[in-house]
């Protein structure tokens, strides 16, 4: 099995496991874990795309000229993607905290049901957007 096949398999494996966690799991935090896994999978794929056999890392060693190097562009992209992933994760966790305080549960279907109940309950001219934490 060449390194390419292994890496691609690893990337797609991570991606699929992450997708399973995001789609099939009912607990919101497990969905978020799945999201992190999906992002890791895609990052690995990006780096694997830029890899070249027996090429050096894209750092010039003290003034000597650049030998055969790995493609640096995907690495820059992955760096950005990792930080984006962390930003989204932080916001997601903040929302999880507030959802937990508001609804007391983190089960996706429960949250969806409670949200629908709350929307139907907001009758004509009922409380405006400021429905408050516990409505």
């Amino acid at each position, binding site marked *: 099995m060449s390194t390419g096949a292994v890496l691609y398999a690893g990337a797609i494996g991570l991606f699929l496991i992450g997708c399973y966690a995001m*789609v099939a799991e009912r607990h919101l935090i497990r969905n978020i874990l799945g999201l992190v896994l999906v992002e890791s999978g895609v990052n690995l794929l990006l780096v694997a795309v830029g890899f070249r056999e027996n090429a050096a890392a894209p750092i010039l060693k003290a003034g000597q000229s650049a030998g055969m190097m790995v493609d640096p562009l995907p690495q820059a992209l992955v760096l950005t993607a990792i930080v984006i992933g962390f930003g989204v994760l932080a916001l997601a966790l903040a929302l999880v905290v507030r959802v937990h305080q508001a609804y007391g549960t983190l089960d*996706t279907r429960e949250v969806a049901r409670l949200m629908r109940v709350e929307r139907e309950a907001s009758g004509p001219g009922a409380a405006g957007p400021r429905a408050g934490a516990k409505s």
Partner: protein
Amino acid sequence: MSLLLRRRFFWEEIDLMSLLDILLLVAALLASGLFVLGRGSFAGWLATVVYGLMLAVLAIAGLALDSGVAFIPSAMSFEILGRNLGWRLDGLGWFFALLTVGAAFFASWYGSGEWGRKQKRMGLQHALLALNVLAMLLLLSSGDLLSLFIGWELVSWAAFAIMTQGGGPAVAAAYRYMIYALAGAMAVFAAIMLVQNVTGGLGFADLQTAISAMSTAQVWVLFILFAAGFGVKMALMPFHLWQAPAYSETPGASSAFLNAVSARMGLFALILVLVKLTGLEALGSLAIPFTFMSAKSALMWVAAITMVVPTFIALMQTDARMLLTWHGIGQGGYMLLGVLVGTSLGTAGGLMHVFNYATYQAALFLAVTAVIHRAGTSDLDELGGLITRMPWTYVTLLMGIIGLAGLPPMNGFVSKWMIYKSLLDGGQPLLLIMAFAATLGTILSVYKLIHNIFLGQLRREHQHLKEAPVSMVLPMLILAGIGFVTGFMPGLALNITDIAQRAIGGDMLPHHLGGVTLATGSLNMLWVVGVLIGAIGAGALIFYLLGNRRYEVHQFDNYAGGHFLSADIRYHFSHEFYPGLARVIGPWYRGSIVRAEQGIGILVNVAGDLWQAVFRVAYTPLYMLLVVVLGLVFTGSWGIVP
């Protein structure tokens, strides 16, 4: 308004181009003015006078058209998105414009009298009436397919606005109408876009070139889209359910206008697109495979069915307005049938029937509104014996139903005679039989109408009723009078329809003041009416002069069935008016189309719930996954398949 004078007259001096612009400008000013003026009672009279002026302008335009001018151009034209929109009035448009403004004139006159003062928002109704007239004039004077469609939408939405004035049930009926009208409009929109796809332009000439350039399948699609789109407004058979409730719920004067003219806009558009531009031969050549029928004959059969079935539904109605509106749908069938026969006699008959129908339907509706104004209800089971209290309304209704039934001396007879003759000459015996059946149904139902309202025993609560005020009786009588005059001298009406027929193309119908002289038989109403009046008149005179020994007999000074009548016995027979007939044709009323309409409604509801359920499900990322897989398969296969 008489057009007897054929000699060239003073119209050369007037710059023709400004006639149509004056007409449109005046209509627009009137509509906006009435919206601003609002509820002043003089607003109604002002509108009536302005309609009169517009009639005069139309008369001058008629003179010009009569002397061979092809169409009256207008200065108003726009160039939008690479398409230019123009407006011009040709003979066909002029004919329908005459009817529109005429009907508006009488409706507005009727509405500005005492009846108007009792309405909640009469000012708004006058304004909406003016808006309707403006929209119809724009439609009738459209110069190309795009302005035709724009005029078409404006007319259907103006009609929707005027229908909602009736309050609760009227809004529901108007809503139902709006859905039909919108569906029809979208069909027309698709059709004109199809034409533009083939020829790249949207002028009337492009439609003609498109017809020849298209494959038969495309021409069939075009025909069906146009026929269905315009048929909805004309309430042709499968799309007719909305018209009766919508037109009867509208307040009195406006509903007279709607009944008389609004449905005929569909006929105008059908004639313009299918008869004038596409041509009856082209329609005739569109054969339906494996049958002897062609597109033209199919449409004729739809018109025939639309003639018969609504008339017998009208028979069963117990509300006067519903009865009349159902007849409106039926009469539409006559007109279309006449035009589609293809001979000059048929076309003239069809067009004249449009004119006649406008006069007697408006008169009938104004009469029924007068009854409602006085007696408070139009339910045939609640009325009776009003002849003694409202004689002039009775006379109007009588003349109206004679016209509606198509009997001499009224004008209805002439146009029906011409349609029958053209069907006979055109070799369509089956359609002729259906026409007769429809006329039979009409005669039965109109007798029910006049009997239940005016004849029979006067109810106790109607003892004190007075005749409708002059402002209501006068317009009715004039309309009925026009019916009688054009019945007595049909030449007058035929002069008008000549202009329209010349615009449609095809040969003209030689006619004289009294009627028509053809190789296969002629009709001279002067003689027919003369003899009729002469004989009846002489007989009545003799009885009146000689007899003279009559004395008033009170209604209850009577003896029936072995016992004396007293006030509390109600022997006026009106409920279930035709029991025998009902038993015979009862089983035929299966209301299949009503169930079809409800079926579509349920289908949309179920589909809506289905789609909402698709979104209400909690695990939405699954759909993303689903689409990615299907998409990859789709793109993958696409990639492999070159």
